[in-house]
């Protein structure tokens, strides 16, 4: 298996590894180690005016180099995203940037599912708080 430069960079030296703790932090995960791909995102929310925004994100990932690189890219680019938003870029755009083979699309969807799960955890908390 060969990897493009972006994948190699984010696989060998990924940004935003780890977890976040605190009352303003939310966690989402998807996939399973036993199935070969598992991703977890932690996000910390802050406010930009009235709008809640992602201040920072961290990830953990068990998976192939494309999954690790994708999760790292998503976490790195998450700053400023609203909790309602989807991935900073689509799974298909991620696959193209990383030049991942099409058969890895399912693994990249696990990255998206984990990100959405973290955003939904944040969103449901915000919704409950405002009720």
């Amino acid at each position: 298996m060969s990897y493009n430069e972006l994948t190699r960079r984010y696989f060998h030296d990924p940004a935003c590894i780890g977890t976040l703790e605190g009352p303003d932090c939310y966690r989402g995960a998807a996939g399973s180690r036993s199935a070969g791909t598992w991703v977890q995102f932690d996000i910390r929310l802050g406010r930009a005016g009235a709008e809640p925004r992602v201040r920072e994100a961290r990830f953990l990932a068990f998976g192939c180099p494309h999954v690790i690189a994708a999760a790292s890219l998503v976490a790195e680019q998450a700053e400023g995203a609203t909790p309602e938003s989807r991935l900073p870029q689509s799974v298909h755009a991620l696959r193209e940037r990383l030049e991942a083979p099409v058969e890895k699309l399912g693994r990249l969807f696990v990255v998206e599912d984990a990100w959405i799960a973290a955003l939904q955890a944040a969103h449901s908390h915000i919704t409950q708080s405002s009720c």
Partner: protein
Amino acid sequence: MSASPVYLDYAATTPVAPEAAARMTECLTRDGTFGNPGSASHAYGEEASARVEAARAQVATALGAEAADIVFTSGATEANNLAIFGTAQYYKDAGRHIVTARTEHKSVLDPCRELERRGWTVTYLKPGAEGALDPARVAAAVRPDTVLVSIMHVNNETGVIADVGAIAALSTRIGNARIHVDAAQSVGKCEVDFAALGVDLLSVSAHKAYGPKGAGALLVSRRRGAHLMPMLYGGGQEGGLRSGTVATHQAVGMGAAFEIASAARGTEHGRIAALGERLWGALREVGGVVLNGAAAARVPHVVNVSFEGVEGESLLAAVQPHLAVSTGSACTSATQEPSYVLRALGRDDRLAESSLRFSLGRFTNEADIDTAAAVVTRAVERLRRIAGHRDAGRRIAGT
């Protein structure tokens, strides 16, 4: 070449021994032995034939066989195919059952699958947790209609040695089956004595033992009266079993390589064993590791280790810039599927996938081993940290 990855994939292939390469080049050009060894009508052919026969004698001596037993082929894959299809075809009226193991090389398993499609029945034995086959279980699978038992000598992924002598003794006592041994990984690593093993057919490869790629042999025991139908027709070379002009330079390279490997085996074995122990001793410090085949008899040249908590493709990608190693067998690593050999040993998909096969050879030294251990340790610890694995960031006792 200091930036080249450390080569620890000698079970996949080896560089040609310089002495063998020198002999080969003597058989290629106009000023060398370029004649057709089948051309008995002139000196060029006679000279080539003499070199082929000298090579045949070298191979026979290295393997405890008679020169007449040696049938040169293009490699072990062809030899395995010839052994299986040739035996099945020759004895088709006596029976259509074959016994083999799930951990055999694809060049045994795929011909067996093809014979199943043609109406033969094949029993695929599962080895024990350490990869060893109980000879009594092999013999118990032999039926009155069994025409062939095909068991590999040294497993290419784990290095586990099968007791093929005992398998042959027990199996032939029960039925009339011919015994075939795939010994592609054996030459130079452990003793191969064709006559003493009491088997009918034995496959070997040149490039696994510092000979050229594209050369191998099937040993057919004349003494035991083994018979085969050929797969290739047209010329009747190699006793009619393998038509086609014998590649003089390939045979000469193989003969020289086998002679060297056989002579060096005694001293190499201890040196390689010490290096293998050094590697495993360092890797077990990472914790959460399994040495596959640890409790079975193994050649020391193969150290196959599974790493808990890391994904296989990422592990290989992490070490690849620095190390040339395999995940599973080199022939199947392109498929990115867990090793069927390790799965047959009872490893789950994740553990089978996260295995690395380190295979040591003639040019491996302590510095290579220390580099490999450091690179793998760093990669495993990093990937476990990324995965949030329970063992990330701390060393635990090896399992």
